[in-house]
């Protein structure tokens, strides 16, 4: 290992190479509730050239390499693969290289923080819609590697819908370019598409070209109060069935409403079975029409009351309730497991019922909120991992949530990725031949198995 460390130090200098145990411990975890693994070294390149050299060293020396942005991963994708592994930090590869207004794209390094990019393009009247919950810290590299989603998935899609091109270093440290700055590009394999959601197992990205769109001119937010979560989830299905696509369509169950109210005293109706938070955006005329239609639908399907935000302050109030959902729940118990099993949106009512039954069956607390409009709920389990008996029940409940989502035609993960947490369950969703195919693909691209081994497809 010392040889590797010496080589890495030659590339990045003493300042950007960490090996002390006290530093290694801080790169042994991410935001997933999983056991930590302490790596041997962490290296922080400042240029693409350094990045490529590091991959070459790891390749030559057969050292497992895990790339880490801000370590906000919820499926364990950034937990090092082994104690002899190297963690590659993208924190200093954080430059926005280009924002092209004429052609509406941006070129960024992988360490650029999502919210920083969103703010920079907004200043120019442009829009980068993917807004994962961790956008204030998450990096574009991480978003691409996990195919991150967010609140706007329903209308605007997720990260994969905005990736136009990626250049990366393959497992041998060779520089590979894919995609282009054009809207259309039909040359070669769609390697950029393959890199999206690859969780650091197929290559190490150094530049990403992202599509931008015009910033919507108008928007309208509203909150609808329901006696039961069933009625709220039926409204979600009805809005979609009526061919209306809101920018965001979020649900909060009673448990979450009470937690948010206790935390923020925002004046939420604590007796409500559920709240729907809805925003429509686009051209002012369209916003007016759709807003009115949504309001009517909510009433027709049994909303007790509907409040439409009349200005930015009221809009802010509505969305701060949604944003504080996770914080409010997190304050209740020491351990929080945030799941993201996703179903076709017409199945939201069935999934909501199933979650309530699972909570009762395993005697655990589940707060449910999330992106109802795109079928991506976040059942959030509150527990204390130190209580072993309860933790077992939690694990069983999680497995049953997975089974239910799959039975309803859904997926194990809408936006958090497979990583370590869901790798053992992947076969349930895809079948063994898909996993074997993925493993062969991976083996061909990474013959020495150095790129984030153990993630996604299990051990290769």
């Amino acid at each position: 290992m010392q040889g590797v460390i010496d080589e890495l130090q030659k590339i990045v200098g003493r300042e950007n190479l960490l090996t002390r145990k006290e530093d290694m411990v801080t790169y042994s975890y991410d935001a997933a509730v999983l056991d930590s693994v302490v790596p041997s070294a962490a290296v922080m390149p400042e240029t693409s050239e350094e990045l490529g050299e590091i991959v070459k060293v790891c390749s030559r020396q057969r050292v497992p390499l895990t790339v880490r942005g801000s370590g906000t991963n919820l499926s364990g994708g950034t937990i090092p693969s082994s104690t002899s592994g190297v963690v590659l930090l993208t924190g200093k590869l954080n430059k926005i290289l280009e924002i092209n207004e004429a052609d509406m794209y941006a070129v960024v390094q992988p360490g650029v923080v999502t919210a920083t990019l969103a703010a920079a393009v907004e200043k120019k009247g442009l829009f980068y819609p993917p807004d994962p919950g961790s956008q204030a810290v998450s990096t574009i590299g991480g978003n691409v590697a996990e195919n991150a989603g967010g609140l706007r998935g329903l209308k605007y899609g997720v990260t994969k819908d905005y990736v136009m091109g990626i250049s990366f270093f393959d497992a041998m440290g060779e520089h590979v370019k894919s995609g282009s700055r054009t809207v259309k590009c039909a040359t070669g394999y769609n390697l950029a598409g393959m890199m999206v959601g690859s969780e650091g197992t197929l290559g190490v990205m150094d530049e990403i070209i992202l599509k931008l769109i015009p910033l919507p001119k108008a928007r309208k937010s509203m909150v609808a109060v329901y006696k039961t979560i069933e009625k709220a989830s039926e409204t979600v299905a009805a809005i979609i069935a009526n061919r209306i696509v809101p920018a965001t369509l979020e649900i909060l169950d009673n448990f979450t409403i009470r937690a948010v109210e206790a935390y923020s005293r925002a004046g939420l109706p604590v007796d409500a079975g559920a709240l729907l938070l809805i925003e429509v955006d686009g051209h002012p005329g369209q916003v007016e029409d759709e807003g009115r239609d949504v309001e009517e639908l909510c009433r027709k399907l049994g909303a007790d009351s509907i409040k439409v935000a009349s200005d930015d302050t009221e809009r802010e109030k509505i969305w701060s309730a949604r944003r504080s959902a996770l914080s409010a729940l997190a304050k209740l118990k020491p351990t929080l497991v945030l799941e993201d099993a996703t179903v076709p949106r017409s199945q939201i009512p069935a999934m909501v019922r199933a979650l309530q039954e699972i909570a009762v069956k395993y005697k655990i607390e589940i707060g449910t909120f999330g992106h109802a409009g795109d079928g991506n709920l976040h059942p959030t389990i509150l527990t204390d991992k130190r209580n072993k008996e309860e933790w077992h029940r939690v694990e069983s409940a999680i497995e049953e949530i997975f089974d239910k989502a799959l039975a309803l035609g859904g997926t194990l993960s809408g936006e958090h990725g497979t990583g370590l947490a869901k790798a053992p369950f992947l076969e349930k969703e895809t079948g063994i031949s898909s996993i074997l195919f993925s493993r062969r693909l991976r083996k061909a691209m990474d013959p020495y198995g150095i790129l984030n081994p153990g993630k996604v497809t299990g051990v290769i």
Partner: protein
Amino acid sequence: MVEIKKTVPKMGTKSEAGMKKLANRLKELEDQLVVCIRCGMCQSVCPLFEQTRREADVARGKLALLDGLGKNLFTDPDGVDERLNKCLLCGSCAANCPSGVNVVEIFIKARAILAEFKGLSPMKKLIFRKMLANPSTFDNLTEWAGKFQGIFTKDEKNAQGTSCARLVAPLISPLINDRHILPMAAKPLHKTTPMINTAPGRSGLKAAIFTGCIIDKIFPAIGHDLIDIFKYHGVGTYIPQGEGCCGIPALASGDMATFEKLVEYHIKLFDQEQFDYLITACATCTSTIKKLWPSIYEGKSSGIREKIGRLSEKTLDINQFLVNKVSFSNDTQGIKSENFNQNNVRKTRVTYHDPCHLKKSLGVISEPRDVIRASGKELVEMEGSDKCCGMGGSFNLYHYGISSKIGNLKQKNIADTGCDTVATGCPACMVQISDMLAKEHLDIKVRHPIQLYADFLREQKLI
């Protein structure tokens, strides 16, 4: 001079048994440590992480290290201690923490446990236990030092009133570095105004003033302004003789003994008189008295915890007091009233820096701005007004390079407003910002909001 007895015997060496003992002590923090869900949101607000991009520099990393130390992951505590101490204690992480981890309290308690284990350095022992813990000794020593400062530094005659190290003092200049320091006042507040005790006037309120070291020794003018403002508003004023330090420097270094001695000393001192509020013009003193005295003090003296509780409840920042408590329903010259004759006032533009210890620990945001506007100024918001200035007390001493980098961002944001004055409600921030502005040779004055208000009252011939 009262000798400080160590409350707990030293835990011992870095032997395996010693490390186990240390791990056991850290278990006391376990219930607070498990609150961290490792989401990493602290990375978005930590001023130190913004500079270094290292996980050990941000709260999540440090909490993981304390957790590791409690689980016997390390063979000696030095690496963890070093990383734990590399923190501004600005509380930006705590204020933005989704799960509400009480980061500052955890770090302070952990520093105390580690200091107890490792022992304080001889230098810190001398400074905290022999000087800071004894207000009169501290006063005498700083006064003595103040008399000689002119030999070592030279006045730069700039807007900030700073001095820099003289070339003739090669011995002391490495200590001062290239800092542009604010000299100690010729006469500290406690010399010119050893004690005040006046009855409530038209406000019907009586307020005790906790001066704080920096105001007493570097900015006594703020203290005088405060006294004049209280006189004008008819607030009965109480300043007891012999006030000392609020204890934060000792606490930040883990010296619980000195901290507790200072708390007990001041509780007794302020117990001698009845008053409605304890007011400070120092954000750090306010937040220390209000939040840390009740949460950190563990001493056993009878009844003292209740007294600490009562005093901390009465403690308010000066801006908060003036805007929210000094009520002027029958008084046309109230601070928030629009009836001041501002026609003859030249509306100068002033920008405001939110001290971390006001905004993030106490949630005081609008009141200092109200005071600035009431002083006939036009308030211009800077970019990132609530970003830490990089001072962080002793952080500035040990990590001057990073402290300056953080401060430089602040300096740029201030300069970008085009204002000729920046106001802030914390004298420690004033010291740092003065240094940063002086380095850039910028003609921008650094003032406390109540200095602006006092100037205004003087211009109006009201005081």
